[in-house]
């Protein structure tokens, strides 16, 4: 399976502030990759580089084999792009915007668009600017589905949406992507949404990638152990096998890729006495916070 997106040795700075260095991202055809990271970790920077709105300091991103700084109109026609906040031409109504975009894409199929619009309680002449964020999200999604792109790049699709619209958006999107073998590259602040949508996860921290793998592998391999320390002076945060170590008084949350046996053996060997040792089942959000830390 070929890579639809390939970013090699991407380095970017804002002024003197390093955003990331030698970042490598690969997204396979037909997969849904979720880019997770805290605010300022470089998610929108990456989206902007992918769309050619930002020139990286060094390195390159390829989409369908073309450098994203010089995408041809034909390749741009194969990419659907959702801007953070579901931004669209707010001075248009739903008829005008459909008419506008339909002229640009030879394979335009307005059925999914009107299917979604029929679910909205909006007037035929109502401007997009007067719609709720949820309604605007459906307009933006409908337009992308009508464009029928091979790759969808979605920047924080859940921003401003209530739970019902988020669920509608995700379910529609995943069903569409899997039925049509579409590739999706997405970011979202609401990680529980991602769990329902993505196949692969890429977690970024400031300046670096913490992990990129299938989300199932990440959830299987990354573990949380909670225990109470008898000596609350113990600090395991510097240990190689520890991905994150959170301690409040003597209560510990330890995050690692190692097994329960390994951790227990390590604690025994070091003579660290614990109570109430248990592995905790994590959601993707728990795992994200576990890996990146609470601060």
């Amino acid at each position, binding site marked *: 399976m070929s890579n639809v997106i390939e970013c090699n040795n991407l380095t970017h700075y804002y002024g003197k502030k390093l955003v990331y260095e030698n970042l490598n991202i690969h997204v396979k055809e037909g997969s849904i990759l979720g880019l997770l990271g805290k605010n300022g970790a470089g998610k929108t920077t990456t989206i*902007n580089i992918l*769309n*050619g*709105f*930002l*020139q990286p300091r060094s390195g390159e991103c390829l989409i369908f084999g073309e450098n994203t700084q010089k995408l041809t*109109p*034909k390749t*741009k*026609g194969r*990419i659907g*792009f959702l*801007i953070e*906040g579901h*931004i*669209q*031409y*707010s*001075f*248009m109504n739903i008829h*005008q915007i459909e*008419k*506008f975009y339909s*002229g*640009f*894409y030879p394979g335009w199929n307005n059925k999914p668009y009107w299917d979604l619009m029929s679910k909205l309680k909006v007037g035929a002449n109502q401007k997009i600017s007067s719609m709720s964020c949820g309604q605007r999200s459906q307009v933006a999604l409908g337009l992308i589905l009508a464009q029928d792109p091979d790759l969808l790049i979605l920047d924080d699709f859940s921003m401003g949406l209530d739970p019902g619209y988020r669920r509608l958006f995700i379910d529609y999107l995943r069903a569409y992507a899997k039925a049509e073998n579409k590739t999706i590259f997405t970011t979202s602040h609401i990680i529980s949404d991602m769990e329902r949508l993505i196949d692969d996860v890429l977690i970024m921290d400031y300046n670096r990638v913490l992990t990129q793998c299938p989300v199932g592998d990440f959830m299987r391999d990354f573990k949380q152990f909670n225990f109470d320390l008898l000596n609350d002076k113990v600090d395991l945060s510097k240990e190689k096998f520890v991905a994150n170590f959170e301690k409040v008084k003597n209560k510990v949350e330890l995050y690692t890729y190692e097994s329960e046996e390994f951790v227990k053996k390590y604690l025994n060997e070091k003579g660290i006495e614990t109570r109430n040792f248990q592995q905790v089942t994590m959601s993707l959000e728990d795992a994200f916070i576990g890996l990146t830390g609470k601060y």
Partner: protein
Amino acid sequence: MIYKEWLKIRWFLAGSILVGLLAVAYIFMNAQRAITFQGANNLWYLILFQNYQFYSMLKYIPLLIGAGIGVAQYFPETVNKRIKLTFHLPLLENNAMLMMLGAGLVSLLISFILIIIAFWGLSITFFGDEMSSAAITTIFPWFLAGLAAYFLVALIVMEPLWKYRIFYALIALIFVPLYLNYGMAGAYAPINLKLALLTILISVSMLFSAYRFRKGEM
């Protein structure tokens, strides 16, 4: 693309044409009033020997129309960086910008031509060919100022950085008055062509702001 631009500017354009035509009507109603109450001879004397420009109220109208259409067309593109949507369309980015610029320019030219035709038609009825030609020569740079204002507003509004916007605005404040200096009727005749060429030169300056946006200046 033209459809999008039309949706943004149609009401402002219609309003601009209406205001321009009303201004022309007002100018000639004033001329008619002067002829009726003060006599045609007196009005002709003022125009020929006292440099009375009976059409002076038209001076800033093209400028305001040009700047207004520029704002109506480009400001919505910068709100929430909506211009990204245009850059993402399956077109070469410069072509997309030139189409936007072309749509605005054609709209502006239509409004200006309608106003000039109305002015010319009424002027030759009142004052004959020779004085009307001098009047057209005088108002021509005012309409060029309208075009220049449109191009400069595009450059300023599309620029991503405020400090550059202010710099461009200062340049515009120095540049645009070149078209509007007070002079005798027809005084601009020798340089109208040069002003037109200058206006054409600044017409594509907006591409630079668009390029800077695309490269991620912020």
